[in-house]
């Protein structure tokens, strides 16, 4: 570790926990089709690098394999069993959205060795997590509450929602920039408000649609976040997530300790690029548009498929989804929007627009 971090300007700013959802959020990029060998290969590499928490599952979490979000290759149990065995040191994380998964899925995940469980709700809907957080606390696992599509809520609203999550038993709270919409000042305001409202660890999860994921994560750390999410090669929906092997050395240069071995982390990222993805995420045209429009990055593949079938511009589809404030989980709106755009065009005499 000391050798690999030589050259950092260690001012001793304390410890940050890096949480790695490569095998969960990254799943969106490959339509939830990772194999047991792929899961095992990356989990072993992340464990060897000292990544403290490795999260696994369908991109939308436990119980989410579906036509709506895409069917997964493996069952939740298969994914958890494989990754659990591949993590002799790291803790295993899982994610669940109430309304997609149920307490039955949570009990099963706990039985399969999940150590850290995140319950996600949309930004102003924290009370949907109340019973699930209660169940997890009774089961004795670490339970966090996280808020999706957080750009749709103000700093004060998010702070209030986080305080509620804590009142339901959350031992950590956080926000996801599900659309990759934030600029650093947006993150600073939100994390600072949350930090002031709760006394449990605060988390930030970035997406890179506007090229801001690492900068936003740094802003979060400086505003008081304790947990940062990042994925190897940024593996994730659309333009990808915060890039793990960039974030960790950046934090080290700023004087934050993560306990992660940088050389081995770079090795793990190479494994991820070679084994998990056809190519690393890039900020392409639809990625930029979905970030600007404030639409969940996970819509990308469905928007491209349906836009091609309906012969409409996927950028128009993203902006219209943004106008309608579609949230993660509302993939069903894509068909309505694409058909509507095509019909509108036909109504104007077949002109493209």
């Amino acid at each position: 570790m000391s050798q690999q971090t030589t050259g950092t300007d260690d001012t001793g700013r304390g410890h940050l926990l890096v949480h790695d959802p490569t095998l969960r959020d990254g799943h969106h990029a490959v339509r939830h089709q990772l194999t047991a060998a792929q899961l095992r290969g990356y989990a072993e590499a992340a464990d060897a690098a000292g990544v403290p928490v490795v999260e696994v599952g369908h991109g939308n979490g436990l119980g989410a394999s579906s036509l709506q979000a895409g069917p997964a290759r493996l069952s939740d149990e298969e994914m958890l069993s494989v990754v659990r065995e591949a993590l002799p040191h790291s803790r295993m994380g899982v994610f669940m959205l109430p309304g997609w998964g149920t307490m039955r899925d949570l009990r099963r995940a706990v039985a399969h060795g999940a150590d850290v469980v995140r319950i996600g709700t949309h930004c102003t809907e924290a009370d949907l997590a109340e019973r699930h957080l209660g169940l997890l606390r009774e089961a004795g696992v670490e339970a966090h509450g996280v808020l999706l599509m957080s750009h749709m809520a103000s700093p004060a609203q998010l702070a209030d929602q986080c305080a509620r999550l804590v009142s339901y038993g959350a031992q950590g709270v956080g926000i996801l920039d599900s659309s990759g919409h934030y600029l650093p000042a947006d993150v600073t305001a939100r994390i600072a408000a949350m930090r002031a409202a709760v006394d449990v660890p605060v988390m930030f999860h970035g997406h890179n649609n506007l090229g801001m994921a690492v900068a936003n994560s740094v802003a979060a750390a400086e505003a008081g976040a304790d947990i940062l999410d990042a994925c190897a090669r940024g593996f994730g929906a659309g333009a990808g997530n915060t890039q793990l092997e960039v974030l960790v050395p950046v934090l080290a240069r700023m004087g934050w300790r993560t306990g992660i071995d940088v050389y081995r982390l770079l090795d793990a990222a190479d494994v991820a690029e070679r084994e998990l993805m056809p190519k690393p995420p890039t900020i392409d045209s639809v990625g930029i548009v979905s970030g600007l429009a404030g639409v969940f990055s996970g819509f990308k593949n469905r928007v491209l498929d349906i836009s091609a079938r309906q012969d409409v511009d996927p950028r128009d589809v993203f902006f219209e989804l943004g106008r309608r404030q579609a949230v993660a989980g509302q993939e069903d709106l894509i068909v309505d929007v694409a058909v509507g755009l095509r019909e509108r065009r036909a109504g104007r005499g077949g002109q493209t627009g």
Partner: protein
Amino acid sequence: MKPNGRLSVAVLGAGLIGIDLAAKVARSRALECRLVVARAADTPGLRQARASGLATATDGVGSLLAADEPFDVVFDATNAMAHVEHAGLLGPLGSTLIDLTPSQVGHMVVPTVNGAEAVGHRDINMVSCGGQASIPLLHAITRRHRVDHVEVVTTAASRSVGRGTRLNLDEYVETTQDAVRDLTGVKDVKAILNISPARPPATFRVATSMVGQDLTPESVRAAAEEAAGRVRAYAAGFEITACVAEGERAFVAVEVAACGDRIPRYGGNLDLINSAAVHVAELIADAHGSAPAVPTAGTETS
């Protein structure tokens, strides 16, 4: 049964659902709303009910047990856990319970599919808002086509989802899945619920996806439109917004706008399940009018 031919009704629960339900019952030619009950005196819902001239009480199910005579129909608009207890207490009094929570206790009824079965059951479950929106369409389509897998995705506006529903998301998912299975015969069913924070609020929406055989757009649309027409008899804001079919896959989405009463337009989830529940109570009232004997539990067919 009252001398005026109306069934006496109590509404248990004065949240978003209970208060709209009371307004709908008050308008019904076949029902008479005699009591609206909450568990606390000063809830906004109860104040609203009083302001519109309805009798109210504040001791929960105890207020119903203390009434001089049992009500013909009790609508339960509380939550799934509470309904189990309510059914145990109210059943012996002879009231017919119409349950708007996803408790899975009573006989599940969707009016256009098995409304006739409501007469003859003493505890009737209205499934869920997503079930009331999707099952009429799915039932019609699965009568004409082989369907092996069904998925129902519901999106309701944050403001239209009250405390009881928020505590019952798991029950919502499981009850909706069970009802789709029971009433369509399709074994492989998944239900998903999104609560949308969008402002202005998004109109209640239910999208159904099907995997089967020979699903043609003409046939799927005809079945769905026919079913939607039948639902509009009691929920006028029920509209198909998308219908796509291609061989093995079909997709039908509906949006339901609320029509008047206590609910803003986006809250079609509340309007639909309440309208369906009142419709069921009216079917029971009609049956009472033509057949004096109330069927006993022993004649149930479930």
